[in-house]
């Protein structure tokens, strides 16, 4: 019995121990560690060429950089966005795939079906329209409490897909093809075969989103979100305009989902309603919960795992959804807070207040 406990503590301390060491470094050491990490991430497509590491990371049966972009980057973006809604503000959204679809469809409409705009111009328009959809859906529904919100958002996701499927203007079930690709920039050419430029672009999007979300999280807005998640009534009585901040969470989440859709549409060049099934919403949610709902880095980890593991471990690819279903149940039983649980407070404040013993995450 104590053996099991000991083992478990060791496994979990692998994560937290690393964090402690990291926090103990001085400013310059930390910045250079960050820098190295970023470079290593941009070099990810070349990892399979590294002798031993390559053996471990490479995906059998599919091209590594395609997996990185089409699966991992998309899932990470989406997990980041959904984490704002579900993890930080505590609003259960089961129709997140809807915003992803809106982003992709707006890009498709503007650059191919009903317009001839360049991708780069479609990007901001699609993100803004996704956010608008967030407002349109959020305004009537965010007054509802948890469970009702879940079912209504689920319905919303389905409405989007069915509308796309049944309207000729949206390409019906044929979908929309010839979506424009991102323009060449910084010496990168966005073609059909090479996925690497898309990955660099997507990774850059991820960094921008992290930057924005980090600023939001450690501000008045982030505090309001967490307060709403913890106790909505108390938050409102402490002067938090709960409706406004819930709507912001929803809108920002929608915008990030839309961004992922834009990136996806630009890469594949062809979309149809079957790319956006309801089950995808559940995989997205699985990513956030698995990694650690409420912790941005947890959500990223979850996104990576959900997207990458099935590609790496091909021997269960047909059982992929089954495995996620079971893992979700097991996760809730064994570790409801996810692999990287949310932290209370933020790290640089903790270092300053070292005088007292911390008893966080007990």
């Amino acid at each position, binding site marked *: 019995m104590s053996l*099991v406990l000991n083992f*478990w503590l060791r496994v979990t301390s692998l994560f937290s121990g690393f964090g402690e060491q990291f926090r103990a470094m001085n400013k310059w050491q930390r910045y250079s560690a960050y820098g190295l990490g970023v470079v290593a991430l941009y070099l990810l497509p070349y990892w399979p060429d590294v002798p031993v590491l390559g053996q471990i990371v490479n995906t059998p049966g599919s091209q590594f950089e395609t997996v990185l972009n089409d699966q991992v980057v998309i899932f990470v973006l989406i997990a980041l966005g959904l984490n704002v809604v579900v993890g930080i503000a505590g609003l259960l959204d089961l129709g997140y795939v809807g915003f992803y679809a809106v982003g992709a469809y707006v890009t498709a409409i503007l650059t191919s079906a009903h317009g001839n705009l360049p991708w780069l111009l479609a990007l901001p328009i699609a993100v803004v329209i996704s956010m608008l959809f967030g407002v349109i859906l959020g305004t009537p529904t965010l007054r509802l409490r948890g469970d*009702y919100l879940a079912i209504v958002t689920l319905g919303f996701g*389905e*409405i989007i897909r069915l509308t796309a499927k049944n309207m000729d203007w949206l390409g019906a079930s044929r979908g929309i093809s010839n979506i424009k690709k991102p323009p060449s920039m910084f010496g990168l050419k966005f073609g059909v075969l090479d996925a690497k430029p898309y990955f660099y672009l997507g990774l850059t999007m991820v960094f921008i989103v992290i930057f924005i979300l980090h600023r939001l999280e450690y501000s008045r807005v982030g505090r309001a979100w967490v307060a709403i998640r913890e106790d909505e009534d108390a938050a409102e009585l402490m002067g938090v305009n709960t409706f406004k901040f819930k709507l912001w969470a929803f809108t920002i989440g929608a915008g990030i989902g839309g961004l992922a859709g834009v990136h996806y549409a630009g890469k594949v060049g062809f979309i149809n309603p079957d790319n956006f099934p309801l089950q995808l919403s559940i995989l997205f949610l699985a990513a956030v919960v698995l990694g650690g709902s409420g912790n941005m880095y947890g959500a990223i980890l979850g996104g990576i795992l959900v997207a990458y593991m099935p590609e790496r471990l091909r021997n*269960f690819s047909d059982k992929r959804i*089954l495995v996620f279903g079971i893992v979700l149940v*097991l996760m809730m039983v064994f570790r409801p807070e996810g692999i990287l649980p949310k932290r209370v407070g933020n790290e640089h404040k903790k270092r300053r207040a070292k005088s007292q013993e911390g008893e966080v995450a007990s």
Partner: protein
Amino acid sequence: MPDWLIIRTFWELTVTGLALGSIYALVALGYTLVYGVLRLINFAHSEIFMVGTFGALLASSQFLSIPLLEDGNYPYRTGMTLIIFLVFIMLIAMLFSGIGAVVLERVAYRPLRGNGDAFGAVVLAFLTAFIVSLVFVDQAKINVIIALLATTPISYAYLRFFKQGRKAPRLAFLISAIGASTAISEAVGVWSKHGRDQYQTPRLLEKKTLFTMFGTDVRIDYAIVIVGALLMMIALTLFVNKTRLGRGVRAVAQDAETSRILGVNVDLIIIVTFALGGVMAGGAAMLFTLVYDQTRFNIGFILGVKSFTAAVLGGIGNLKGALLGGLLLGLVENYGSAIFGGQWKDVIAFVVLLVVLMFRPTGLLGESLGKARV
């Protein structure tokens, strides 16, 4: 379209809408019962329904050995044989769904309440071992067995000794429900005989016109569905209102803590609640196969979403609400798809839900089993 045809279509749509609505209502009861007692959306209830349809399929094609076609014709039965067969199939479907619901509760929900039992722990430990062997071990049989043997006792011990008494947050229950739902449906999709393909169920009943009303032929299978659903609902209402266990269900729905203090065995009541919901879903499943003659691993999902919509529409936690919501949804969907086209059917259902919730945030009849939330 001439006027008389519209009228005629209207009544036809009403009959088929009521039949579909009856099935929604029966499944909705399961959501409502569990929500009333645990304040939990039993997201996996849709798969309990799906399991019921497979129960009905097994009962007719395996237990009764009825083929899909006999000498090129449907295997019609008549008279007493038909009635006995139908009742038998329904009982088996109910059994499948009922057991499914109870197992689901003990594996996916009860451990989260902090009082998991040995049964749940065994299943969870086995599932853990299964995942470990699938993900980390190559497919050689002996390695899989070693992984199973090594992992099962460890996770069992962990569950029994470290997870007792810890109640998970509300969101965790819903996620667990979503996971269980996905897992059950996929398990059937992966391991059943024809996998993800559609299954035909034997058609025992000749679908003749039973009588004509307002110029519309009412087919016998629709009549059976509507009457059968009503009878089951009456039986459920009697059970909840007149029996000791039913009183327990209502007491726990009112206030679980107080009930526990007053000596109600809350865990038993929860099992009963799940079993009741499962039995209703099983009945619905059999009636479903009677009308549509088919099933599939993912058949529960959209029907479950619709039924939950029906429950919310009527006021979740409220038995009458489930009936009202189910019938209403069936009708609205049918009329709506006649006006806008069948491809918009699901959209209409969700739009109706949205509109109702905007004006009545707790559904048409309100949350009666449950208390209003502060």
